[in-house]
């Protein structure tokens, strides 16, 4: 299982959190909430495509609405593999960051 890139991870987490309600706009807003960063749609969709190709995410078509000029929404749901990938990533993070807290940072560069 390949590692997730930072941005893929972020998107995947958003999709997970949004459970079922994740599409371009909502994902973008969720990410802004979580990280205070505003990603371009281009960036998001490139990574979304990668995630779909990797099988971590499944796409689902919604209904076309007038506000979207007649285009359908594409919803993204996390798949089993995607879930596993997230768990994997979380565990890796934990072991890498294990034992480190805010207090550790107060101590400075020397650990």
């Amino acid at each position, binding site marked *: 299982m390949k590692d997730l890139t930072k941005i893929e991870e972020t998107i995947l987490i958003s999709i997970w959190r949004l459970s079922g309600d994740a599409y371009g706009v909502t994902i973008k807003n969720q990410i802004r909430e979580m990280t205070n960063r505003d990603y371009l749609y*281009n960036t998001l969709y490139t990574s979304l495509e990668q995630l779909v190709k990797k099988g971590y995410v499944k796409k689902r078509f919604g209904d076309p609405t007038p506000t979207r000029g007649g285009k359908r929404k594409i919803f993204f749901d996390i798949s089993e593999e995607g879930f596993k990938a997230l768990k994997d990533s979380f565990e890796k993070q934990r072991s890498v960051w294990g034992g480190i807290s805010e207090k550790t940072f107060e101590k400075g560069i020397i650990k």
Partner: protein
Amino acid sequence: MKNKREGLPGFPAWILRKLNSSLLQEGYSGDIEEEYYSIKEVRSQWYAWFWLYFQAFRSIPGGIRNMLMKNAVMFRNYFKIAVRNIWKQKGYSFLNIAGLAIGMACSILILLWVNHELSYDKFHHNYKNTYRIIQHIKYDEVVNWAITQGPLGPSLKEEFPEVTEFVRTRGTRLNIGYKDREITEFTTYTDPSFFRLFNIKLKKGDPDAALSNPNSIILTQEAAAALFRDEDPVGKTVTISEEKDLKVTGVLEDIPDNTHLQIGILTTMQYALERGNSVNRWNNSGFYTYIQLQEGTDPEVVNLKIYDFLDNKPTVEDWEKISLQPMEDIHLTSGIGYDVPTGSKQFVIIFSIIALLVLFIACINFMNLSTARFSARAKEVALRKVVGAEKIQLIIQFLNESVIQAIIGFSFAMVLAVLLLPLFNELSGKNFSMQILYQREIIVGYLSVVTLTGLISGSYPAFFLSSFKPANMFKGISGSGLAGAGFRKTLVVFQFSISIILIIGSMVIYSQVEYIQNRDLGFDRNDLLCINFNNDNFGKFETLKNELLSKPEIIDITSSSSLPTSGFVFSNSRWSWEGKDPDDAILFRANVIGHEYFKTLGIKMLEGRDFTADISKESLSVIINKTALELMGLQDPIGKKVTYGNSTDYNIIGVAENFHFRSLHSEIEPLLLFYGPDNSSIVYARLSPENTTNTISYIEKSWTSLFPGETFNYGFIDELLSGQYYNEEHIGNIVRSFMLLAIIISCLGLFGLSAYMAEQRTKEIGIRKVLGSSISEIIVLISKPFSKWIITANLISWPLAYIIMSGWLNGYPYRTAIDLRLFFITGIAVFIISFITIGYQSVRAARKDPVESLRYE
């Protein structure tokens, strides 16, 4: 049913769409629209506008990267297909690649050579402002000499402010000794400014100071190793000819091979003066003089100023002028008298043309073969088109195939070039190492050449094949116009014409070289040993002679001051005689010889007698050659006088038959021979042909015992002679290689073509066989068009070859005639070669089972 509503601003929307055309396109566009409208609502129209443009432009870099990545996948796909196609037609692909590889390898090597030749002397600082002085002297016509008078350099600098530097060089051989070791090596006298004009590096020593002391000497690394072994030579003292001490002030770094300079060991001009050289005298030319002009000076202006500079100087001849020769031109200009061995601009041009020609032929072959295959590919093309391939896709695919073949060909070409490098070095007289092929600029250059070749060679077939109409294919219409037989025929004829010209050329060159090497030189060149002699040892010469002659294998001994083939010791026109027209200025060559010269060398005396052994008696005697006699127009020459300048009279005591004292590149000029056995630098020994090695060791023993410390440096005259024709042998070798090349490439082309044509006519052959033709009849049938082509090629190339080779031969005063039978032999040879090439295909086609042929779709 599109709702015409107020949509997104077109431009940024368009950009966004193009940047991310993917499977999620719909979601993407939709999301953007949704957010756009929501922003428009919440904030304002302007803000929404701004947001949209922001999204669009910030997405551009990422979008481009995306496109490249995605297309990379597509390219990989095309690549796979192209490779598969190439592999499917192994035979043709191999021919194509081989042809390209050979052509490219050839061009690569030639371009290396051309590049090297053009780079001579360009590594010197300020080479653009450095010039050599050429002297023009009028005898009957004006001759150009590369050597000038000693004082010329310094006076030019003194008189003309534009001249910022000068340097002189003069070569000699010095005997250098240290402790108990001794060497005799080529040495150059020069001025301390040497290192300012020439970018020659010193391994040890300071270039600014090394020659400032007049008693300095700078050794070559080999000389230093021979004399000093592991000691540091700098600061030590060496002895010249056991009399003069010089201090070693430096050791030379190896000099680069792309310079005309041949220097060896260096020492000072003051020492040259001490040894009696005409450094400060105007009445002798023997120095190469170089000057440097101020930056920005126009050489033409300086030329005008210095042209008459010698008029008021006490020079030997009356009419002497000088002019500037740019240093970068020295190597490639030939024909100047007393010059160093040069290359030739014509060769550079000729070989560049040949390189391009070879590449061109290879590309044409490539194009030819590719289009010839169209009937086999036509079905494939038609099918693809029917299934929906776009024309551009087909073009890209075919171009891909060509470029890939070109790249594969290039890799083989590099391998070939490396393999052929030693052979090429031998042919060209250069010393390229493999590294030179790996230099970045060269590789970049080649890659672009390769891609270009692939694209150009491939473009024609690509466009042609892809524009083919499916309907035509199924109707079985064969190609016309450029793909047609006319074009192909021209190509084959062209290639074979070139091959034929090269074959004839190399045969003519060969026979000329043979002629030169075997022509009677007027003296007996067999088993004539020449030994370098140090004139200081003259006292012991008689002893040597007696000792050597006591051995029966040594027949005759004599000496002279220069080899019969390196010509002469001095030449000028200040000779007069009874009946000479005072306005005539005739150049006489002159040499100083020893006792029994004519006998030892086997030169016939026409009238009079040889010199006797009495030096004092013969001090004013002279022997002239036949040409001199004819030029002087004397009736009874014996006893007549020849006067030098207006003072010294010499008595003519004999007339010798003409012999070639220069290479066969020159006519035999009038020659005056004077007696001076005490002025010798070569000893000649006529040996009997058996057991020469033993004889030579005997001579060596006597030599080293009589002249301790002198090196025994010898050579047979016929070896020395063949060295003169190094150039011709070179050219011969090179032309021969090209001949082989041209034949190979032409045959490759022919082979492919014959296969194609046999294939084209498969049905026809099948039918003929059914109707009763025999195999041999069919073979004749297939071969007929080719025969016509070869005959045409012959007819075209014969006159051309004749003209070219006659022109070349005219450069030689002594030459062989062009044997017309050569042409016929070549024609027949080419016929045979081409038939062997065609043979395989035609026999195979003729033997094919008619059932198979008729079933052939």
